[in-house]
């Protein structure tokens, strides 16, 4: 079975089946998730299929805030997915609670209930961002399998401290002194 392991890992990275759970979203992000399936974005190119069944899925896409009522449902769906699996929080609400963060019935982002691997912010999140999120989630799965480095930042659109800012030519993590030194 050892020789199969290599091929199984190749398969894992090439066929992420997704299941989408609307945790109380305004449907803005949901529409964008569905847009990924259309001929314009065609996520099936990457082997991604929307399976609609947690028992068949590898990646859980969650949109919307978590509240006291649906936290249990979210946990249940997550538990039904067989390992290895990944979770992507899609949209501002799923990442942090968004504008509903302080509502009396809202617990906050998805990570209050289940572990989140990738955050894809946006209101609404763009389909390109969702596809990027799935690709980044594959990097996370890869790292968990011990096949590569763990992505430094798991929030889409946020630079790591050693990435170079094209405007200044310095890393994003550069200190104020280093920046002023270059400016002078």
């Amino acid at each position, binding site marked *: 079975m050892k020789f199969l392991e290599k091929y199984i890992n190749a*398969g894992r990275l090439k066929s992420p089946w997704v299941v989408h759970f609307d945790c109380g979203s305004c449907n803005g992000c949901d529409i964008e998730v569905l847009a990924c399936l259309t*001929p314009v974005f065609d996520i*099936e190119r990457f082997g991604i299929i929307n399976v*609609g069944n947690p028992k*068949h899925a590898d990646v859980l896409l969650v949109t919307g805030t978590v509240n006291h009522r649906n936290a249990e449902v979210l946990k249940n769906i997550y538990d039904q997915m067989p*390992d290895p699996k990944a979770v992507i929080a899609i949209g501002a609400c799923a990442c942090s609670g968004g504008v509903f963060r302080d509502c009396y019935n809202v617990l906050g982002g998805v990570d209050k209930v289940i572990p989140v691997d990738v955050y894809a912010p946006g209101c609404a999140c763009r389909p390109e961002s969702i596809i990027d999120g799935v690709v980044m989630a594959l990097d996370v799965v890869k790292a968990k399998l011990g096949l590569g480095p763990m992505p430094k930042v798991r929030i889409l659109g946020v630079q790591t401290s050693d990435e170079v800012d094209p405007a200044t030519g310095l890393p994003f993590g550069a200190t104020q002194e280093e920046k002023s030194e270059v400016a002078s």
Partner: protein
Amino acid sequence: MTTLILALVGLVLAPVVGGYIAGLDRRLTARLQSRMGPPLAQPFYDVLKLWGKASNVSHPWLVFSAYMYLVSSALSVFILFTGGDLLLLFFVLTVGAVFQVVGALAVNSPYSQVGAQRELLQMLAYEPVLILVFMGIFLGSGSFAVADIFKLESPLLCSMPLLYIALGYAFTIKLRKSPFDIAASHHGHQELVKGVQTEYSGRELAMLEVAHWFDVVLMLGLCAIFWHTNVIGMAVLLIVTYIVEVLVDNISARMTWQWMLKNALGFGLTLSLANILWLYVK
């Protein structure tokens, strides 16, 4: 002995061919919907990934049923390749279908239960048609053995075109293509989720997928019997048949089981009986 070795080689090659046909099917479907579609080897990636998933079995019967379905599909392909008896093949094929229903009924999931009921109705629709096709082949060739049919001089399609169309109905129902994908669809994000396959996951689902590839090869093999005289004619017949299947799959919506029974039994049985009557009179 040579037959046995060839049949064993066929048994090993069948899932490979079936997998690539499934990949081609997905690609063709994507092109028909003006999409790019996944790589040709995508079904293999899917099955390998499913094989490596953690076990998540909701009922022991699911595992047993998955094995039985895979064994029955593989065995029916083996019987076909050894030139065996069509009636035996029919019964072995039925065992697989029955075990799919047994597995789906063992769990409480409503999707699975509804899928199982619909799978039984599908069997009710395609099995009479299939058995009449085999009867027609018997009337045309004088034997149920595939090996004997291959000794005939003229292709069966010339004397039984209506039976071939009836076989097309059985083909579409057995492979769960639209408009007959009522028990389990290839598109799992719909009202029935995955029907009979909803509760299977990981390794068991991978086995169902491989069994499905065997079924594709088996159905294409049954179609190939209708033009056994030369390889080119056989290939043309199979390619045309499969492209028509993919086309029908894409241009039609899923229909109800009542519609399926009316159509498959109405047209299928009428076409096959008409052809059998003609063979009998001739």
